[in-house]
């Protein structure tokens, strides 16, 4: 009973083999079943996530959140889903129909593809790809592509502007994200996510808190969440790239966004919080699954928390923050981590010494960054204006008035 998922898989395999199917075909069918199950669980989690996020938003903004339908408002998202399913699908005049309709599907698919490589427990993993970290980045390209397709095919200026912004944002934030992903790779000596989880004897967030921080910030930009939701800024470009979508087509973008945030939580849990690791997780894989979900929700909560606290930044601030702060910082961190790792491996240090030195190096970099920022950023000078009367007396103003 310690591993119900593999129990079911084995039972299914026995059933299919008993029906007289070949081993290869059984394998293919089981892979498909696994993919469908993971995708369905992902989509169902989103329904819960929407409720959760609205509840968190309510608490942070000092109100109750949904509380009418069902206990604690738990049935509210189901009502919303039914509403959105019955809405009319509109297609704008002059839209590029095929591309317009593929875009929302790709938005969800690009996120679901990431779930293929995430280890949920010690025995439950889609596929142990030896280039797992790179695969995550490659799949992200399809998310960007879906936004571009939606923006271009909608035949709408606001959608096009949203797509423009998305390219600037997503391509630039990919760089610190990739570099921060290299830190777990250095520590684990592997790009496979299964190996990375297995190597986390102290969690990697202890070895490199700065990398975790950079990864979370860059991921927030990748999922277009506030404070980085410039491409759907309501007050500037109405709704950005998904302005022309209605009903479930919009719903797909919405689901894709929530699922992406949840996936970021899962990635943070896998790469930095030890994945399924925890007490007795190896004997009882089901416990690992529970640990993994708890850690994922911690990551999810951080992203939601920041979204609800920080206001949207301007586009120049967004680019400056990436190119002048995050990218140099992540590169410095990478160089120092790589050199220290080499030295510590050469002197054959113990695991705890290795962890301690890495942790102290990270703290040192954070301290140095704060000091440099204090020195270099000049405080915005408040311009002094001389006091002026609000209204002028009529005698003085007549002399300056042009004679008509």
């Amino acid at each position, binding site marked *: 009973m310690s591993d119900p998922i593999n129990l079911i898989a084995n039972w299914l395999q026995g059933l299919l083999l008993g029906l007289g199917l070949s081993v*290869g075909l059984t394998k293919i069918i089981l892979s498909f079943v696994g993919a469908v199950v993971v995708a369905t669980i992902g989509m169902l989690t989103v329904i819960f996530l929407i409720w959760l996020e609205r509840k968190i938003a309510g608490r942070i903004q000092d109100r109750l959140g949904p509380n009418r339908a069902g206990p604690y408002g738990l049935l509210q998202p189901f009502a919303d889903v039914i509403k959105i399913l019955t809405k009319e699908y509109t297609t704008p005049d*002059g839209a*590029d129909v095929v*591309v317009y309709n593929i875009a929302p599907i790709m938005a969800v698919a690009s996120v679901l593809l990431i779930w293929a490589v995430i280890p949920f427990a010690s025995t439950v993993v889609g596929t142990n790809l030896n280039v797992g970290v790179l695969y995550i980045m*490659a799949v992200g*390209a399809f998310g*960007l592509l879906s936004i*571009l397709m939606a923006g*271009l095919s909608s035949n709408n200026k606001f959608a096009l502007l949203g*797509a423009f912004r998305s390219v600037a944002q997503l391509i630039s934030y990919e760089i610190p994200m990739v570099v921060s992903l290299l830190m777990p790779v250095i520590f684990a000596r592997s790009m496979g996510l299964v190996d990375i989880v297995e190597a986390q004897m102290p969690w990697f967030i202890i070895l490199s808190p700065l990398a975790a921080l950079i990864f979370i910030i860059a991921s927030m930009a990748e999922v277009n969440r506030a404070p980085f939701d410039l491409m759907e800024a309501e007050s500037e470009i109405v709704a950005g790239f998904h302005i022309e979508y209605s009903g479930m087509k919009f719903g797909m973008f919405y689901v894709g966004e929530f699922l992406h945030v949840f996936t970021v939580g899962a990635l943070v849990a896998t790469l930095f919080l030890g994945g399924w690791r925890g007490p007795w997780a190896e004997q009882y894989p089901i416990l690992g699954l529970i640990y993994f979900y708890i850690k994922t929700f911690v990551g999810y909560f951080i992203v939601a928390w920041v979204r609800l606290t920080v206001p949207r930044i301007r586009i120049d601030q967004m680019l400056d923050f990436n190119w002048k702060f995050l990218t140099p910082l992540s590169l410095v961190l990478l160089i120092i981590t790589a050199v220290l790792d080499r030295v510590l491996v050469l002197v054959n240090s113990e695991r705890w010494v290795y962890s301690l030195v890495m942790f102290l190096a990270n703290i040192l970099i954070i301290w140095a960054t704060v000091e440099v920022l204090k020195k270099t950023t000049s405080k915005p000078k408040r311009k002094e204006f001389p006091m002026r009367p609000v209204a002028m007396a009529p005698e003085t103003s007549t002399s300056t008035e042009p004679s008509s």
Partner: protein
Amino acid sequence: MTGMDSLFLIFAVITLISAFLVVTTKNLFHAALWLIMTLFGVAAIYVLLNAFYLAVIQVIVYIGAIAILMIFAIMLTQRVMNPSGRIFNKNWIIAALLGAFMFIGLVIISMQTGASKTTLPQISGQLDTVSELGQALVSPNAYVIPFEVASVLLLAALIGAIFVSRKR
């Protein structure tokens, strides 16, 4: 015909058809999307050859960067929604002839070298191709010189871009 062969055929057909559509589609945006499909088909063929690293890099570099930049350029320059103008210019016959000659030449070469008859060499499942590649890229008796030359070239391009775009 094994399952591998049929998968290869499917991806090859997808790649070829999308490559053909890249040059015959009137809408430039659609052409870029077909190009992405072509590159994706090539990546799938890499996967069939057990070259996961190459496949993922193909997707990151060509689809994630180059194709996206192409679409970005199309967004900036063209009236995407109502394409106008001819697809082919008057050189299309020469280009088609050159392409045909190239194809025939490649086929002849692969026939002569016997490349069409060699089977896929078996690699052991334990081989960690990524770390092998990493070792090869920095080891002095393998590819360290091309690797460093490429790095210097990219650095020069970066500095050049900064120099060109700097305000005088």
